[in-house]
Protein backbone atom coordinates (compact mmCIF):
# COMPACT_ATOMS: atom_id res chain seq x y z
CA UNK A 1 0.00 0.00 0.00
CA UNK A 2 1.41 3.34 -1.08
CA UNK A 3 -0.59 5.79 1.01
CA UNK A 4 -0.47 4.67 4.61
CA UNK A 5 -2.05 7.48 6.59
CA UNK A 6 -5.41 9.14 6.23
CA UNK A 7 -3.71 12.48 5.67
CA UNK A 8 -1.83 11.07 2.68
CA UNK A 9 -5.02 9.48 1.41
CA UNK A 10 -6.93 12.76 1.52
CA UNK A 11 -4.02 14.51 -0.17
CA UNK A 12 -3.88 11.77 -2.79
CA UNK A 13 -7.60 12.08 -3.42
CA UNK A 14 -7.25 15.80 -4.04
CA UNK A 15 -4.29 15.21 -6.34
CA UNK A 16 -6.26 12.60 -8.26
CA UNK A 17 -9.16 15.00 -8.75
CA UNK A 18 -6.74 17.62 -10.10
CA UNK A 19 -5.03 15.09 -12.37
CA UNK A 20 -8.39 13.99 -13.72
CA UNK A 21 -9.24 17.60 -14.57
CA UNK A 22 -5.82 18.07 -16.23
CA UNK A 23 -6.32 14.92 -18.31
CA UNK A 24 -9.79 16.09 -19.32
CA UNK A 25 -8.25 19.36 -20.50
CA UNK A 26 -5.63 17.45 -22.50
CA UNK A 27 -8.41 15.36 -24.02
CA UNK A 28 -10.16 18.58 -25.07
CA UNK A 29 -7.08 20.29 -26.49
CA UNK A 30 -5.11 17.51 -28.22
CA UNK A 31 -6.27 15.51 -31.23
CA UNK A 32 -6.27 15.28 -35.03
CA UNK A 33 -7.63 18.80 -35.52
CA UNK A 34 -4.93 21.21 -34.46
CA UNK A 35 -6.19 23.21 -31.51
CA UNK A 36 -4.47 25.19 -28.83
CA UNK A 37 -5.17 25.82 -25.13
CA UNK A 38 -6.21 29.35 -26.04
CA UNK A 39 -8.70 28.08 -28.61
CA UNK A 40 -10.15 25.67 -26.09
CA UNK A 41 -10.48 28.48 -23.58
CA UNK A 42 -12.09 30.76 -26.13
CA UNK A 43 -14.50 28.07 -27.30
CA UNK A 44 -16.18 28.18 -23.91
CA UNK A 45 -15.81 31.86 -23.05
CA UNK A 46 -15.93 33.52 -26.44
CA UNK A 47 -17.45 31.12 -28.98
CA UNK A 48 -16.98 32.35 -32.54
CA UNK A 49 -18.35 29.48 -34.64
CA UNK A 50 -15.07 28.43 -36.23
CA UNK A 51 -14.48 24.79 -37.05
CA UNK A 52 -12.07 24.40 -34.16
CA UNK A 53 -14.50 25.85 -31.65
CA UNK A 54 -17.29 23.61 -32.90
CA UNK A 55 -15.05 20.55 -32.62
CA UNK A 56 -14.00 21.49 -29.11
CA UNK A 57 -17.53 22.06 -27.92
CA UNK A 58 -19.44 19.31 -29.67
CA UNK A 59 -16.79 16.59 -30.16
CA UNK A 60 -13.95 16.92 -27.68
CA UNK A 61 -15.88 18.05 -24.60
CA UNK A 62 -18.46 15.23 -24.74
CA UNK A 63 -15.65 12.80 -25.40
CA UNK A 64 -13.67 13.92 -22.34
CA UNK A 65 -16.72 13.84 -20.10
CA UNK A 66 -17.78 10.44 -21.41
CA UNK A 67 -14.31 8.94 -20.99
CA UNK A 68 -14.12 10.19 -17.40
CA UNK A 69 -17.61 9.03 -16.40
CA UNK A 70 -17.43 5.68 -18.18
CA UNK A 71 -13.96 4.95 -16.81
CA UNK A 72 -15.06 5.81 -13.28
CA UNK A 73 -18.22 3.71 -13.54
CA UNK A 74 -16.50 0.62 -14.94
CA UNK A 75 -13.81 0.78 -12.28
CA UNK A 76 -16.31 1.10 -9.43
CA UNK A 77 -18.44 -1.69 -10.90
CA UNK A 78 -15.27 -3.80 -10.93
CA UNK A 79 -14.66 -3.05 -7.23
CA UNK A 80 -18.24 -4.00 -6.36
CA UNK A 81 -18.08 -7.24 -8.33
CA UNK A 82 -14.68 -8.26 -6.99
CA UNK A 83 -15.93 -7.62 -3.49
CA UNK A 84 -19.22 -9.43 -4.09
CA UNK A 85 -17.60 -12.49 -5.62
CA UNK A 86 -14.27 -12.50 -3.73
CA UNK A 87 -12.85 -13.20 -7.16
CA UNK A 88 -9.85 -11.08 -8.15
CA UNK A 89 -10.65 -11.53 -11.83
CA UNK A 90 -14.22 -10.30 -11.53
CA UNK A 91 -15.25 -7.41 -13.76
CA UNK A 92 -18.42 -6.37 -15.59
CA UNK A 93 -17.44 -8.24 -18.76
CA UNK A 94 -17.29 -11.64 -17.09
CA UNK A 95 -20.78 -11.34 -15.64
CA UNK A 96 -22.48 -11.24 -19.00
CA UNK A 97 -22.97 -7.48 -18.92
CA UNK A 98 -21.02 -6.64 -22.08
CA UNK A 99 -22.15 -9.80 -23.85
CA UNK A 100 -25.78 -9.06 -23.00
CA UNK A 101 -25.48 -5.48 -24.22
CA UNK A 102 -23.72 -6.59 -27.40
CA UNK A 103 -26.35 -9.18 -28.14
CA UNK A 104 -29.18 -6.69 -27.63
CA UNK A 105 -27.52 -4.24 -30.04
CA UNK A 106 -26.88 -6.90 -32.69
CA UNK A 107 -30.49 -8.12 -32.45
CA UNK A 108 -31.70 -4.56 -32.92
CA UNK A 109 -29.59 -4.08 -36.02
CA UNK A 110 -30.22 -7.51 -37.52
CA UNK A 111 -33.95 -7.81 -36.88
CA UNK A 112 -35.15 -4.23 -36.88
CA UNK A 113 -32.47 -2.69 -39.12
CA UNK A 114 -32.02 0.17 -36.69
CA UNK A 115 -28.50 1.51 -36.41
CA UNK A 116 -28.93 4.70 -34.46
CA UNK A 117 -26.48 5.36 -31.62
CA UNK A 118 -29.24 6.88 -29.47
CA UNK A 119 -31.30 3.73 -29.83
CA UNK A 120 -28.22 1.63 -29.10
CA UNK A 121 -27.88 3.43 -25.77
CA UNK A 122 -31.14 2.17 -24.37
CA UNK A 123 -31.06 -1.17 -26.09
CA UNK A 124 -27.64 -1.97 -24.71
CA UNK A 125 -28.55 -0.71 -21.22
CA UNK A 126 -31.53 -3.04 -21.31
CA UNK A 127 -29.44 -5.94 -22.63
CA UNK A 128 -26.81 -5.42 -19.92
CA UNK A 129 -29.42 -5.19 -17.17
CA UNK A 130 -31.39 -8.23 -18.31
CA UNK A 131 -28.24 -10.29 -18.66
CA UNK A 132 -26.88 -9.35 -15.21
CA UNK A 133 -30.27 -9.90 -13.57
CA UNK A 134 -30.32 -13.41 -15.11
CA UNK A 135 -26.80 -14.03 -13.83
CA UNK A 136 -27.77 -12.75 -10.38
CA UNK A 137 -30.88 -14.93 -10.19
CA UNK A 138 -29.10 -18.06 -11.43
CA UNK A 139 -26.29 -17.33 -8.95
CA UNK A 140 -28.82 -17.00 -6.10
CA UNK A 141 -30.72 -20.24 -6.68
CA UNK A 142 -30.13 -22.83 -4.00
CA UNK A 143 -29.96 -23.02 -0.25
CA UNK A 144 -27.06 -20.71 0.56
CA UNK A 145 -28.38 -17.91 -1.66
CA UNK A 146 -25.88 -15.91 -3.65
CA UNK A 147 -22.41 -17.44 -3.45
CA UNK A 148 -19.29 -16.16 -5.22
CA UNK A 149 -18.77 -19.41 -7.08
CA UNK A 150 -22.33 -19.71 -8.38
CA UNK A 151 -22.35 -16.07 -9.45
CA UNK A 152 -19.06 -16.45 -11.33
CA UNK A 153 -20.17 -19.65 -13.07
CA UNK A 154 -23.52 -18.14 -14.02
CA UNK A 155 -21.69 -15.11 -15.44
CA UNK A 156 -19.34 -17.25 -17.48
CA UNK A 157 -22.23 -19.32 -18.84
CA UNK A 158 -24.35 -16.30 -19.69
CA UNK A 159 -21.43 -14.50 -21.37
CA UNK A 160 -20.64 -17.55 -23.48
CA UNK A 161 -24.25 -17.91 -24.52
CA UNK A 162 -24.76 -14.27 -25.50
CA UNK A 163 -21.39 -14.06 -27.21
CA UNK A 164 -22.04 -17.10 -29.38
CA UNK A 165 -25.55 -15.95 -30.24
CA UNK A 166 -24.12 -12.56 -31.20
CA UNK A 167 -21.56 -14.22 -33.45
CA UNK A 168 -24.26 -16.40 -34.97
CA UNK A 169 -26.33 -13.37 -35.88
CA UNK A 170 -23.33 -11.54 -37.29
CA UNK A 171 -22.35 -14.46 -39.50
CA UNK A 172 -25.86 -14.69 -40.95
CA UNK A 173 -26.29 -10.95 -41.34
CA UNK A 174 -23.24 -9.21 -42.78
CA UNK A 175 -24.80 -5.76 -42.97
CA UNK A 176 -25.32 -5.88 -39.25
CA UNK A 177 -21.67 -6.79 -38.85
CA UNK A 178 -20.50 -3.62 -40.54
CA UNK A 179 -22.83 -1.43 -38.57
CA UNK A 180 -22.09 -2.78 -35.13
CA UNK A 181 -18.44 -3.68 -35.43
CA UNK A 182 -17.22 -0.28 -34.27
CA UNK A 183 -19.72 -0.30 -31.43
CA UNK A 184 -18.59 -3.76 -30.36
CA UNK A 185 -14.99 -2.60 -30.03
CA UNK A 186 -16.02 0.08 -27.57
CA UNK A 187 -15.43 3.78 -28.08
CA UNK A 188 -16.03 7.11 -26.42
CA UNK A 189 -15.88 9.14 -29.64
CA UNK A 190 -18.73 10.23 -31.88
CA UNK A 191 -21.18 10.36 -28.96
CA UNK A 192 -23.26 13.41 -28.26
CA UNK A 193 -23.42 15.09 -24.89
CA UNK A 194 -27.13 14.15 -24.79
CA UNK A 195 -26.19 10.46 -24.84
CA UNK A 196 -24.18 10.94 -21.66
CA UNK A 197 -26.83 13.19 -20.14
CA UNK A 198 -29.45 10.47 -20.66
CA UNK A 199 -27.60 7.87 -18.61
CA UNK A 200 -25.73 10.20 -16.25
CA UNK A 201 -28.39 10.06 -13.52
CA UNK A 202 -27.98 6.28 -13.38
CA UNK A 203 -24.19 6.54 -13.20
CA UNK A 204 -24.39 9.21 -10.51
CA UNK A 205 -26.83 7.12 -8.49
CA UNK A 206 -24.43 4.18 -8.84
CA UNK A 207 -21.46 6.25 -7.62
CA UNK A 208 -23.30 7.65 -4.62
CA UNK A 209 -24.82 4.33 -3.64
CA UNK A 210 -21.42 2.60 -3.88
CA UNK A 211 -19.93 5.18 -1.52
CA UNK A 212 -22.80 4.68 0.90
CA UNK A 213 -22.35 0.91 1.10
CA UNK A 214 -18.53 1.04 1.21
CA UNK A 215 -18.34 0.49 5.00
CA UNK A 216 -20.71 -2.46 4.80
CA UNK A 217 -18.63 -4.01 2.01
CA UNK A 218 -15.71 -3.98 4.47
CA UNK A 219 -17.78 -6.06 6.88
CA UNK A 220 -18.86 -8.43 4.12
CA UNK A 221 -15.24 -8.91 3.05
CA UNK A 222 -14.60 -10.79 6.31
CA UNK A 223 -16.87 -13.57 5.15
CA UNK A 224 -20.58 -14.21 5.02
CA UNK A 225 -20.81 -15.84 8.46
CA UNK A 226 -18.75 -13.22 10.28
CA UNK A 227 -20.72 -10.44 8.60
CA UNK A 228 -24.06 -11.98 9.56
CA UNK A 229 -22.79 -12.53 13.09
CA UNK A 230 -21.98 -8.81 13.29
CA UNK A 231 -25.56 -8.02 12.36
CA UNK A 232 -25.09 -7.16 8.71
CA UNK A 233 -28.02 -7.98 6.45
CA UNK A 234 -25.86 -9.63 3.82
CA UNK A 235 -28.68 -10.50 1.42
CA UNK A 236 -29.81 -6.88 1.27
CA UNK A 237 -26.26 -5.61 0.83
CA UNK A 238 -25.56 -8.01 -2.04
CA UNK A 239 -28.79 -7.04 -3.73
CA UNK A 240 -27.91 -3.36 -3.34
CA UNK A 241 -24.42 -3.91 -4.71
CA UNK A 242 -25.96 -5.86 -7.59
CA UNK A 243 -28.29 -3.00 -8.45
CA UNK A 244 -25.43 -0.49 -8.30
CA UNK A 245 -23.42 -2.75 -10.61
CA UNK A 246 -26.25 -2.80 -13.16
CA UNK A 247 -26.59 0.99 -13.04
CA UNK A 248 -22.85 1.57 -13.42
CA UNK A 249 -21.85 -1.03 -15.96
CA UNK A 250 -25.14 -0.93 -17.85
CA UNK A 251 -24.86 2.85 -18.09
CA UNK A 252 -21.21 2.63 -19.14
CA UNK A 253 -21.78 0.08 -21.86
CA UNK A 254 -24.79 2.06 -23.09
CA UNK A 255 -22.66 5.14 -23.72
CA UNK A 256 -19.38 3.63 -24.86
CA UNK A 257 -20.02 0.04 -25.88
CA UNK A 258 -18.14 -2.82 -24.29
CA UNK A 259 -14.81 -1.61 -22.89
CA UNK A 260 -12.83 -4.35 -21.23
CA UNK A 261 -10.02 -4.63 -18.70
CA UNK A 262 -10.69 -1.39 -16.86
CA UNK A 263 -13.01 -3.15 -14.43
CA UNK A 264 -10.37 -5.75 -13.61
CA UNK A 265 -7.21 -3.67 -13.61
CA UNK A 266 -8.27 -0.52 -11.77
CA UNK A 267 -9.50 -2.17 -8.55
CA UNK A 268 -6.14 -3.95 -8.19
CA UNK A 269 -4.19 -0.81 -8.94
CA UNK A 270 -6.33 1.09 -6.43
CA UNK A 271 -5.78 -1.43 -3.66
CA UNK A 272 -2.04 -1.19 -4.27
CA UNK A 273 -2.35 2.56 -3.68
CA UNK A 274 -4.79 2.86 -0.77
CA UNK A 275 -5.18 -0.60 0.72
CA UNK A 276 -8.37 -2.58 1.14
CA UNK A 277 -10.76 -0.23 2.95
CA UNK A 278 -13.67 0.20 0.52
CA UNK A 279 -14.38 3.67 1.85
CA UNK A 280 -11.11 4.69 0.16
CA UNK A 281 -11.03 2.12 -2.62
CA UNK A 282 -14.31 3.21 -4.21
CA UNK A 283 -13.57 6.94 -4.65
CA UNK A 284 -9.97 6.22 -5.72
CA UNK A 285 -11.07 3.54 -8.18
CA UNK A 286 -13.53 5.99 -9.72
CA UNK A 287 -10.85 8.64 -10.18
CA UNK A 288 -8.17 6.25 -11.44
CA UNK A 289 -10.66 4.59 -13.80
CA UNK A 290 -11.58 7.96 -15.28
CA UNK A 291 -7.90 8.82 -15.64
CA UNK A 292 -6.97 5.54 -17.33
CA UNK A 293 -9.78 5.77 -19.88
CA UNK A 294 -8.85 9.39 -20.63
CA UNK A 295 -5.22 8.38 -21.19
CA UNK A 296 -6.26 5.43 -23.36
CA UNK A 297 -8.55 7.66 -25.37
CA UNK A 298 -5.94 10.38 -25.90
CA UNK A 299 -3.38 7.74 -26.91
CA UNK A 300 -5.87 6.15 -29.32
CA UNK A 301 -5.86 9.36 -31.37
CA UNK A 302 -2.11 9.33 -32.00
CA UNK A 303 -1.22 5.70 -32.67
CA UNK A 304 -2.38 5.38 -36.29
CA UNK A 305 -3.11 9.03 -37.01
CA UNK A 306 -5.19 10.22 -38.86
CA UNK A 307 -7.24 7.18 -37.97
CA UNK A 308 -8.18 6.25 -34.43
CA UNK A 309 -7.80 2.99 -32.57
CA UNK A 310 -11.02 2.06 -30.75
CA UNK A 311 -10.45 2.86 -27.08
CA UNK A 312 -11.61 -0.63 -26.10
CA UNK A 313 -8.56 -1.94 -27.95
CA UNK A 314 -6.33 0.56 -26.13
CA UNK A 315 -7.53 -0.45 -22.67
CA UNK A 316 -6.86 -4.07 -23.59
CA UNK A 317 -3.37 -3.20 -24.83
CA UNK A 318 -2.62 -1.34 -21.61
CA UNK A 319 -4.52 -3.84 -19.47
CA UNK A 320 -3.10 -7.14 -20.67
CA UNK A 321 0.49 -6.71 -19.44
CA UNK A 322 -0.89 -5.53 -16.12
CA UNK A 323 -3.17 -8.53 -16.01
CA UNK A 324 -0.25 -10.87 -16.56
CA UNK A 325 1.62 -9.02 -13.82
CA UNK A 326 -1.21 -9.59 -11.33
CA UNK A 327 -1.42 -13.24 -12.26
CA UNK A 328 2.34 -13.75 -11.89
CA UNK A 329 2.60 -11.86 -8.63
CA UNK A 330 -0.04 -14.18 -7.18
CA UNK A 331 -3.27 -13.00 -5.66
CA UNK A 332 -2.24 -13.63 -2.10
CA UNK A 333 0.55 -11.14 -1.76
Amino acid at each position, binding site marked *: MLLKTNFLRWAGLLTAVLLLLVLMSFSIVYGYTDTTWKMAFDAFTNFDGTNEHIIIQSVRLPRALIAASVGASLAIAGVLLQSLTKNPLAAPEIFGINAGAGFAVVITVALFSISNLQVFTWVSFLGAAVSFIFVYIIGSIGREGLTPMKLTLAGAAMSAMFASMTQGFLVINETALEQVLFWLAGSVSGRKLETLAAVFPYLLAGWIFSLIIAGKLNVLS*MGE*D*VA*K*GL*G*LKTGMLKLGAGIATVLLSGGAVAVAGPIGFLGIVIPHLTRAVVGIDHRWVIPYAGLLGGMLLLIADIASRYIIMPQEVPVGVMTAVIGTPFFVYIARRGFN*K
Partner: protein
Amino acid sequence: MTAGQAIATKDLTLSYGDTIIINELDLEIPKGEITVFIGGNGCGKSTLLRSIARLLKPKSGAVLLEGEAVAKLSTKDVARKMAILPQSPLAPEGLTVLQLVKQGRYPYQTWLKQWSTEDELKVRNALKATEMEELKDRTVDSLSGGQRQRAWIAMTLAQDTDTILLDEPTTYLDMTHQIEILDLLFELNEKEQRTIIMVLHDLNLACRYAHNIVAIKDQKVFAQGKPEHVINCGLVKNVFGMECEVTIDPLFGTPLCIPYGKGRCILKGQGLQG
Protein backbone atom coordinates in the same frame (compact mmCIF):
# COMPACT_ATOMS: atom_id res chain seq x y z
CA MET B 1 -33.72 -22.49 35.90
CA THR B 2 -35.10 -19.99 33.39
CA ALA B 3 -33.49 -17.07 35.22
CA GLY B 4 -30.08 -18.57 34.66
CA GLN B 5 -30.37 -19.46 31.01
CA ALA B 6 -28.59 -17.54 28.28
CA ILE B 7 -29.97 -19.44 25.35
CA ALA B 8 -32.71 -21.96 24.88
CA THR B 9 -34.11 -23.78 21.90
CA LYS B 10 -37.74 -24.77 21.59
CA ASP B 11 -38.87 -27.56 19.28
CA LEU B 12 -35.92 -26.67 17.11
CA THR B 13 -35.67 -28.65 13.89
CA LEU B 14 -32.76 -28.03 11.52
CA SER B 15 -32.32 -29.50 8.09
CA TYR B 16 -30.25 -29.30 4.95
CA GLY B 17 -32.81 -29.75 2.21
CA ASP B 18 -34.83 -32.80 3.24
CA THR B 19 -32.17 -34.22 5.54
CA ILE B 20 -33.06 -33.55 9.16
CA ILE B 21 -29.96 -32.68 11.20
CA ILE B 22 -31.52 -31.76 14.54
CA ASN B 23 -35.04 -32.88 15.40
CA GLU B 24 -37.45 -31.03 17.74
CA LEU B 25 -34.76 -30.08 20.20
CA ASP B 26 -35.48 -28.42 23.53
CA LEU B 27 -32.21 -27.27 25.02
CA GLU B 28 -31.30 -24.85 27.78
CA ILE B 29 -27.84 -23.36 28.02
CA PRO B 30 -26.93 -21.83 31.40
CA LYS B 31 -25.77 -18.26 31.70
CA GLY B 32 -22.23 -17.40 32.77
CA GLU B 33 -20.85 -20.87 32.13
CA ILE B 34 -18.78 -22.58 29.49
CA THR B 35 -20.86 -25.00 27.50
CA VAL B 36 -19.23 -27.35 25.00
CA PHE B 37 -21.04 -29.28 22.28
CA ILE B 38 -19.50 -32.67 21.56
CA GLY B 39 -20.39 -35.45 19.16
CA GLY B 40 -19.15 -37.44 16.22
CA ASN B 41 -18.39 -35.95 12.82
CA GLY B 42 -21.57 -34.87 11.08
CA CYS B 43 -23.75 -35.21 14.18
CA GLY B 44 -24.94 -31.65 13.78
CA LYS B 45 -23.10 -29.91 16.63
CA SER B 46 -21.74 -27.18 14.36
CA THR B 47 -25.10 -26.89 12.62
CA LEU B 48 -26.78 -26.39 15.99
CA LEU B 49 -24.25 -23.71 16.95
CA ARG B 50 -24.73 -21.95 13.60
CA SER B 51 -28.47 -21.97 14.00
CA ILE B 52 -28.23 -20.54 17.52
CA ALA B 53 -26.10 -17.77 15.98
CA ARG B 54 -28.88 -17.22 13.37
CA LEU B 55 -26.49 -18.13 10.52
CA LEU B 56 -28.84 -20.95 9.61
CA LYS B 57 -32.59 -20.61 9.51
CA PRO B 58 -34.45 -23.32 11.44
CA LYS B 59 -36.89 -25.53 9.55
CA SER B 60 -39.21 -25.11 12.51
CA GLY B 61 -39.08 -24.13 16.16
CA ALA B 62 -37.17 -21.25 17.69
CA VAL B 63 -33.95 -20.14 19.33
CA LEU B 64 -34.48 -17.96 22.39
CA LEU B 65 -31.86 -15.45 23.48
CA GLU B 66 -32.48 -14.32 27.06
CA GLY B 67 -36.07 -15.45 26.64
CA GLU B 68 -36.75 -13.67 23.34
CA ALA B 69 -37.04 -15.36 19.98
CA VAL B 70 -33.90 -14.53 17.98
CA ALA B 71 -35.86 -14.51 14.72
CA LYS B 72 -38.02 -11.67 16.07
CA LEU B 73 -35.12 -9.45 17.17
CA SER B 74 -33.31 -7.17 14.74
CA THR B 75 -30.07 -8.74 13.62
CA LYS B 76 -28.06 -5.81 15.03
CA ASP B 77 -29.77 -6.19 18.43
CA VAL B 78 -28.77 -9.83 18.42
CA ALA B 79 -25.20 -8.84 17.49
CA ARG B 80 -25.03 -6.66 20.62
CA LYS B 81 -25.93 -9.65 22.82
CA MET B 82 -24.29 -12.58 21.09
CA ALA B 83 -21.09 -12.88 19.08
CA ILE B 84 -20.17 -15.76 16.83
CA LEU B 85 -16.75 -16.83 15.66
CA PRO B 86 -17.23 -19.25 12.76
CA GLN B 87 -14.86 -22.11 12.06
CA SER B 88 -11.59 -21.02 10.36
CA PRO B 89 -12.64 -17.49 9.40
CA LEU B 90 -10.62 -15.87 6.64
CA ALA B 91 -9.61 -12.21 6.81
CA PRO B 92 -9.16 -10.37 3.51
CA GLU B 93 -5.48 -10.06 2.64
CA GLY B 94 -3.90 -6.87 3.91
CA LEU B 95 -6.37 -6.38 6.79
CA THR B 96 -4.58 -5.35 9.97
CA VAL B 97 -5.41 -6.71 13.40
CA LEU B 98 -6.66 -3.30 14.48
CA GLN B 99 -8.94 -3.02 11.44
CA LEU B 100 -10.26 -6.50 12.15
CA VAL B 101 -10.98 -5.79 15.80
CA LYS B 102 -12.65 -2.49 14.93
CA GLN B 103 -15.16 -4.34 12.77
CA GLY B 104 -16.41 -5.89 16.00
CA ARG B 105 -18.00 -2.52 16.74
CA TYR B 106 -20.15 -2.67 13.62
CA PRO B 107 -23.37 -3.51 15.52
CA TYR B 108 -23.03 -0.25 17.49
CA GLN B 109 -22.53 2.02 14.52
CA THR B 110 -25.34 4.03 13.01
CA TRP B 111 -25.50 6.80 10.47
CA LEU B 112 -25.21 9.45 13.12
CA LYS B 113 -22.77 7.67 15.38
CA GLN B 114 -19.86 6.37 13.35
CA TRP B 115 -17.07 5.96 15.90
CA SER B 116 -17.25 6.87 19.60
CA THR B 117 -14.85 6.94 22.52
CA GLU B 118 -16.67 3.90 23.85
CA ASP B 119 -15.90 2.04 20.62
CA GLU B 120 -12.26 3.06 21.04
CA LEU B 121 -12.21 1.82 24.63
CA LYS B 122 -13.82 -1.54 23.84
CA VAL B 123 -11.36 -2.13 21.01
CA ARG B 124 -8.43 -1.31 23.30
CA ASN B 125 -9.76 -3.63 26.01
CA ALA B 126 -10.28 -6.43 23.50
CA LEU B 127 -6.69 -6.10 22.27
CA LYS B 128 -5.45 -6.07 25.85
CA ALA B 129 -7.43 -9.12 26.95
CA THR B 130 -6.09 -11.13 24.03
CA GLU B 131 -2.55 -9.70 24.37
CA MET B 132 -2.67 -8.44 20.81
CA GLU B 133 -1.70 -4.81 21.52
CA GLU B 134 1.84 -5.26 20.24
CA LEU B 135 0.62 -6.93 17.06
CA LYS B 136 -2.23 -4.56 16.28
CA ASP B 137 -0.60 -3.04 13.19
CA ARG B 138 0.42 -6.38 11.68
CA THR B 139 -1.72 -7.82 8.92
CA VAL B 140 -3.83 -10.79 9.95
CA ASP B 141 -2.43 -12.99 7.18
CA SER B 142 1.13 -12.48 8.48
CA LEU B 143 0.31 -13.88 11.93
CA SER B 144 0.82 -17.42 13.20
CA GLY B 145 -2.24 -19.65 13.63
CA GLY B 146 -2.56 -19.01 17.35
CA GLN B 147 -2.10 -15.24 17.04
CA ARG B 148 -4.58 -15.13 14.21
CA GLN B 149 -7.19 -16.92 16.30
CA ARG B 150 -6.52 -14.50 19.16
CA ALA B 151 -7.09 -11.60 16.76
CA TRP B 152 -10.46 -13.02 15.75
CA ILE B 153 -11.39 -13.60 19.38
CA ALA B 154 -10.44 -9.97 20.03
CA MET B 155 -12.94 -8.99 17.34
CA THR B 156 -15.72 -10.93 19.05
CA LEU B 157 -14.71 -9.36 22.39
CA ALA B 158 -14.94 -5.88 20.89
CA GLN B 159 -18.51 -6.79 20.07
CA ASP B 160 -19.01 -6.61 23.86
CA THR B 161 -21.63 -9.32 24.15
CA ASP B 162 -22.64 -11.41 27.15
CA THR B 163 -22.59 -14.55 25.06
CA ILE B 164 -19.86 -15.73 22.71
CA LEU B 165 -20.24 -18.69 20.38
CA LEU B 166 -17.19 -20.34 18.85
CA ASP B 167 -17.17 -23.09 16.26
CA GLU B 168 -14.09 -25.25 16.85
CA PRO B 169 -11.81 -22.38 17.89
CA THR B 170 -8.81 -24.71 18.19
CA THR B 171 -8.95 -26.30 14.73
CA TYR B 172 -5.57 -26.36 12.93
CA LEU B 173 -3.74 -25.18 16.05
CA ASP B 174 -0.92 -27.11 17.64
CA MET B 175 -1.31 -28.28 21.24
CA THR B 176 0.38 -25.24 22.81
CA HIS B 177 -1.92 -22.84 20.99
CA GLN B 178 -5.00 -24.94 21.67
CA ILE B 179 -4.33 -24.57 25.39
CA GLU B 180 -3.51 -20.89 24.99
CA ILE B 181 -6.85 -20.19 23.27
CA LEU B 182 -8.89 -22.26 25.70
CA ASP B 183 -7.14 -20.64 28.70
CA LEU B 184 -8.04 -17.25 27.25
CA LEU B 185 -11.69 -18.22 26.91
CA PHE B 186 -11.66 -19.73 30.40
CA GLU B 187 -10.34 -16.48 31.87
CA LEU B 188 -12.94 -14.44 30.02
CA ASN B 189 -15.57 -16.59 31.59
CA GLU B 190 -14.00 -16.44 35.06
CA LYS B 191 -13.25 -12.71 35.13
CA GLU B 192 -16.13 -11.29 33.14
CA GLN B 193 -18.75 -14.02 33.53
CA ARG B 194 -19.27 -14.21 29.82
CA THR B 195 -21.32 -17.14 28.63
CA ILE B 196 -19.22 -19.20 26.26
CA ILE B 197 -20.69 -21.82 23.97
CA MET B 198 -18.39 -23.73 21.69
CA VAL B 199 -17.91 -26.82 19.63
CA LEU B 200 -14.76 -28.78 20.45
CA HIS B 201 -13.38 -31.93 18.89
CA ASP B 202 -11.09 -32.91 21.71
CA LEU B 203 -13.15 -34.65 24.35
CA ASN B 204 -10.47 -34.36 27.05
CA LEU B 205 -10.07 -30.62 26.58
CA ALA B 206 -13.85 -30.31 26.55
CA CYS B 207 -13.95 -32.08 29.94
CA ARG B 208 -11.25 -29.84 31.32
CA TYR B 209 -12.72 -26.48 30.31
CA ALA B 210 -16.48 -27.02 30.21
CA HIS B 211 -18.90 -26.49 33.08
CA ASN B 212 -21.55 -28.03 30.95
CA ILE B 213 -21.28 -30.65 28.22
CA VAL B 214 -23.91 -31.21 25.57
CA ALA B 215 -23.45 -34.52 23.76
CA ILE B 216 -25.32 -34.75 20.48
CA LYS B 217 -26.34 -37.92 18.68
CA ASP B 218 -29.12 -38.95 16.31
CA GLN B 219 -30.57 -35.45 15.88
CA LYS B 220 -31.04 -35.17 19.66
CA VAL B 221 -29.15 -34.26 22.81
CA PHE B 222 -27.91 -37.58 24.15
CA ALA B 223 -26.77 -36.19 27.48
CA GLN B 224 -26.17 -32.85 29.12
CA GLY B 225 -24.47 -31.90 32.35
CA LYS B 226 -21.16 -31.52 34.16
CA PRO B 227 -18.37 -33.51 32.45
CA GLU B 228 -17.72 -35.53 35.60
CA HIS B 229 -21.38 -36.56 35.65
CA VAL B 230 -21.97 -37.35 32.00
CA ILE B 231 -18.67 -38.55 30.53
CA ASN B 232 -18.19 -42.29 30.95
CA CYS B 233 -17.36 -45.32 28.79
CA GLY B 234 -21.01 -45.86 27.95
CA LEU B 235 -21.49 -42.32 26.65
CA VAL B 236 -18.33 -42.37 24.56
CA LYS B 237 -19.34 -45.73 23.10
CA ASN B 238 -22.79 -44.39 22.30
CA VAL B 239 -21.95 -40.95 21.02
CA PHE B 240 -18.64 -41.60 19.27
CA GLY B 241 -18.99 -45.34 18.68
CA MET B 242 -15.61 -45.87 20.31
CA GLU B 243 -14.44 -48.26 23.02
CA CYS B 244 -12.44 -46.50 25.72
CA GLU B 245 -11.48 -46.31 29.35
CA VAL B 246 -12.40 -43.21 31.28
CA THR B 247 -9.98 -42.34 34.05
CA ILE B 248 -9.24 -39.16 35.96
CA ASP B 249 -7.02 -36.41 34.61
CA PRO B 250 -4.04 -36.44 37.03
CA LEU B 251 -3.67 -32.64 36.85
CA PHE B 252 -7.27 -31.43 36.87
CA GLY B 253 -9.34 -34.29 38.21
CA THR B 254 -11.67 -34.07 35.24
CA PRO B 255 -12.63 -37.16 33.20
CA LEU B 256 -9.90 -38.35 30.84
CA CYS B 257 -10.83 -40.61 27.99
CA ILE B 258 -8.28 -43.16 26.77
CA PRO B 259 -9.38 -44.88 23.59
CA TYR B 260 -8.75 -48.55 22.81
CA GLY B 261 -7.28 -49.35 19.45
CA LYS B 262 -4.09 -50.47 17.82
CA GLY B 263 -0.64 -49.15 18.55
CA ARG B 264 2.65 -49.93 20.19
CA CYS B 265 1.94 -51.23 23.68
CA ILE B 266 4.88 -51.51 26.06
CA LEU B 267 2.72 -52.97 28.81
CA LYS B 268 1.93 -56.13 26.81
CA GLY B 269 1.93 -59.25 28.93
CA GLN B 270 1.96 -57.26 32.17
CA GLY B 271 -1.73 -56.51 32.17
CA LEU B 272 -3.06 -53.00 31.93
CA GLN B 273 -3.21 -52.14 35.61
CA GLY B 274 0.20 -50.37 35.65
